[in-house]
């Protein structure tokens, strides 16, 4: 039952993030919703890595493939790193927008339309 609880928590975070992404127009809150989605994905990956097995079992296992059981954790670390880099870049852009256009609403950024 533990895996199910973790996955339901992850699904709830994901749908809250989707909701925030669709309704809010403030850039920073949109970014926060995006972070929630990233977080839920990492959570579900780590939960799967800990609680599910999808390979044939044998008593004699090579060291590499035995350690490779933890590949899900590595995947989580990579996702966290990319999300952190993306947030740094996006917040620099928010700073520039706030200085030059004096707006942080997504609806006001429509120069490319015409």
């Amino acid at each position, binding site marked *: 039952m533990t895996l199910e609880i973790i996955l339901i928590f992850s699904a709830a975070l994901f749908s*809250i993030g989707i909701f925030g992404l669709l309704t809010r127009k403030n850039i920073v809150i949109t970014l926060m919703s995006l972070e929630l989605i990233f977080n839920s994905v990492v959570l579900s990956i780590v939960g799967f890595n*800990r609680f599910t097995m999808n390979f044939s079992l044998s008593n004699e296992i090579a060291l590499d493939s035995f350690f490779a059981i933890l590949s899900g*954790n*590595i995947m989580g*670390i990579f996702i*966290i790193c990319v999300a952190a880099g993306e947030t740094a870049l996006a917040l620099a852009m928010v700073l*520039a*927008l*706030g200085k030059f256009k004096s707006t942080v609403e997504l609806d006001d950024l429509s120069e490319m339309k015409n």
Partner: protein
Amino acid sequence: MDNLLDIFLVIVSIVGIASASYVVAQTNVFRAALALAVSFMTVAVVFFAINAEFLGAVQILVYIGAVSVLMAFSVLLVKDLQTASSSTVGIRFILSSVSSLLIFVVLVLVILGTDWNKTNQIDNEDFRQALFEKYVIDEENKMIITNLDKNDNTNLDLRKGLFNDSIIPIGSLLSTKYFISLQLIGMIIVACVIGSIAITKNTIENEDEGDKETI
């Protein structure tokens, strides 16, 4: 013991879901950043509870220590950012709430309806021992020895199970199998940091010249 873990995870999940809802409902962006930190913390607690200690530490360092603080920092730097416009109840609000609720319901139905291939139910006793209790590494053949009761391996160093002590396997994986990926991630982060420094530097210089036309 498993039931205790389940109850703990349910409580932590409720706190996490409540703070995440607070983030998307809040009009004050600074408060939303603080609630986001609480939500990240609950995810880190779940990581610690399911034996992913390294990832929990990374979560606390990167998300709570860097991302939330960066969010709060940018809120304080930009003037109009303090209060965000609240979402108005209209056709868009209703459509997006219905669609996100639908996503949640479908995900929950799939999660509860699937028969997951659980690690707790492994039949192979030796393998189970290697995952959760102890194992020994045979350095010559690059194998692991799991059936410790039958072999007498007193001269080899005993290690805790793979999930109980995951730091050494993760470090070994990062430095062998995933080495190229690690270098690539480092390059991506350097590119992101240089890009954000360039954008911020241009912003400050253009502001000093009084040129507010273009970015």
